């Protein structure tokens, strides 16, 4: 009956209870969404780091880590890859040549790391082949000589990401119902080639109003974008003797990941063509990247490979991308901090509401004590009321938060305006929130604990009431 009385007491003052319930609901929704966004970002960063950049395990010459010189190759790479092939945890592996170089076009130059890879084997280890941008050519092909795969960022730096407005583009925009007034202004930019996004944006700003740019700017920029596929790029690097050597490649494709830092420096060519350039009979192996079926096997596989690696060093993704590893490991701390702060705020609201309820029911509580309800039952009743009040809001909040996160997890949240900043540190501009069952369980426990702690002060206040005095009150 105490449970029944406590539940019914929650609804005595419906408005007041609903205010608290809505506050708890909104608090939980924001907590779930906030953590969901963090979790989504961390998972995305980790996923992108592993599937675009570092894989699960990499093997290098021990000296190469400190000093990335061309002659510091992996020792006995074939023996190592034969052992890798026997691993039951294996998904794929690839050998890479990795040399610091300079990339030049007629308009700009930039420092890069040039990777010589086997394109087909590379597809089994990274997903770069899926990251080719629209109208950005194609991935490396072993049958297509002289191909160079560069990033959107590198293309921008080398002035290979250009913009031009043509008649056909204007016609496409007309069919896309862009107003004639806008198209008339665009005509004045026709056939002019802009060699950087900044130059094109500036030209548009000079021609169009803010409102026109907000409405049509993205569409115009998208249509006018012209990657200079098949443009020549001169690669300059040093051979084993330190002599500078140059080779001409042609851009075959433009890729884009969520990590601008990685994109900016990484260009890819066919391993054999790179070997031909530096004059080696063999393809130099500076790195062996290994992808496993399950990320959790990285530690075990590292131990196994370390036994046969000899003078080479074997590193897991945690050592190769410590930022992503740290974020992953610290998620539990984030849970505690975010949810803890929300619970603290909620606790004050709950305590205030319950204290008001006790004050209003002073006479009733005195009567219950007079009739023979002992202190334990009074305490239990107050505590249950507090728990019920909190639990209703928490259940509504967690369900709504979960639904919202699931929906946003499919559609994604696009942080327009901050995209470049996020990508500079390896995070996607579009995040897909995700909530784990562990987090929902953790939050449920925190809610119950908060309710119990919040009930102590009001319950103690109730227990201190003197039935004789309270029964006299009006």
């Amino acid at each position, binding site marked *: *009956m105490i449970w*029944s*009385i406590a539940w*019914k*007491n929650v*609804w*005595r003052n419906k408005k007041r209870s609903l205010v608290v319930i809505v506050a708890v609901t909104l608090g939980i929704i924001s907590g779930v969404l906030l953590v969901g966004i963090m979790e989504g970002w961390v998972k995305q960063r980790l996923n992108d780091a592993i599937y675009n950049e570092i894989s699960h395990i990499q093997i290098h010459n021990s000296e190469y880590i400190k000093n990335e010189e061309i002659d510091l190759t992996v020792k006995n790479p074939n023996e190592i890859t034969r052992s890798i092939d026997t691993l039951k945890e294996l998904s794929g592996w690839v050998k890479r040549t990795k040399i610091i170089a300079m990339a030049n076009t007629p308009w700009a130059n930039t420092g890069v790391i040039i990777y010589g890879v086997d394109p087909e084997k590379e597809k089994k280890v990274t997903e770069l082949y899926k990251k080719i941008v629209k109208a950005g050519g194609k991935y490396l092909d072993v049958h297509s000589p002289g191909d160079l795969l560069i990033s959107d960022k590198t293309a921008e730096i080398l002035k290979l990401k250009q913009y031009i407005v043509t008649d056909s583009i204007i016609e496409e925009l007309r069919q896309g119902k862009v107003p004639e007034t806008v198209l008339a202004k665009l005509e004045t930019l026709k056939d002019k080639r802009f060699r950087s996004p900044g130059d094109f944006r500036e030209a548009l700003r000079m021609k169009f109003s803010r409102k026109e740019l907000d409405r049509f700017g993205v569409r115009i920029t998208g249509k006018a974008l012209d990657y200079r596929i098949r443009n020549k790029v001169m690669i300059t690097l040093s051979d084993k003797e330190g002599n500078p050597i140059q080779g001409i490649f042609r851009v075959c494709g433009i890729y884009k990941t969520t990590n601008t830092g990685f994109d900016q420096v990484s260009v890819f060519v066919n391993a054999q063509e790179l070997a031909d350039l530096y004059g080696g009979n063999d393809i130099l192996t500076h790195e062996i990247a290994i992808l496993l079926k399950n990320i959790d096997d990285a530690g075990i596989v590292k131990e196994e490979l370390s036994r046969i690696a000899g003078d080479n060093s074997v590193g897991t993704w945690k050592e190769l991308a410590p930022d992503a590893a740290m974020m992953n490991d610290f998620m539990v701390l984030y849970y505690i901090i975010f949810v803890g702060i929300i619970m603290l705020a909620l606790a004050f609201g709950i305590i205030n509401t319950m204290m008001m309820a006790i004050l209003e029911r002073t*006479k*009733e509580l005195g*009567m*219950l*004590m*007079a*009739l*023979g*309800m*002992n*202190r334990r*039952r009074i305490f239990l009743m107050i505590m249950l009321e507090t728990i019920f009040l909190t639990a209703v809001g928490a259940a509504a909040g967690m369900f709504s938060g979960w639904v919202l996160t699931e929906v946003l997890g499919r559609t994604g949240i696009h942080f327009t305006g901050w995209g470049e900043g996020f990508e500079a540190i390896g995070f996607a501009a579009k995040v897909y929130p995700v909530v784990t069952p562990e987090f929902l369980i953790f939050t449920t426990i925190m809610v119950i604990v908060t309710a119990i702690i919040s009930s102590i002060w009001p319950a103690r206040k109730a227990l201190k009431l003197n*039935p*004789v005095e309270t*029964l006299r009150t009006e």
Partner: protein
Amino acid sequence: MKVLELRNVNKIYNSSEVKVHAVNDVTLNFAEAEFAAIVGPSGSGKTTLLNLIGGLDMPTSGEIIISGTNLSGLKSSKLIDFRLRNIGFVFQSYNLIPVLTAKENVEFIMTLQKWPKKERDERTIELLRAVGLGDRIHSRPSKLSGGQQQRVAVARALASKPKFILADEPTANLDSKSATTLLEIMETLNHEEKITFIFSTHDARVVKMAHRIITLEDGKVISDDRRE
């Protein structure tokens, strides 16, 4: 058989400004099935005496013995339990639990005492019928009149078959018709259930129906009259 004994009971309130001798050397005995009224002017100590008898307050000196148990010898938790099992209360302002129905209010005491459900239900229906509310068992207090609420309070007080019932001004908030009906019901139950009723009252109707009238003045018993 003595249900209640008060032996030289005193209650003195010592505030910083004044010392109040609310109950002054009261010695009384109550037998089974008595229908007694404690009367006196305001401030005579009626409510204080009832609070002492009910174990809600402790005497400064003297003894209160209920069916052989000395209240002052009981620890706080045992006193609460003793009160639950042996004493029924009817308050001036009904004091029903507003979120419970009439049935739930009556069976509340029996639930605290862990009566089996079947017996609890039977006793509840029997009492509510006895007080004339057999057709309102599922009504909440807000749907009942003052008189009906007080009848539910009487049924609740009787629920666990206590040794006696203390009623502090039970008719004060009722109209005359409701008050008369309530008193008749209480008199009938007193007769049928053989439970002692002790009233604190100003109501002449209660005094008229009481079999024993104890008059208090300045905390002392100045008369104790029994009617045949």
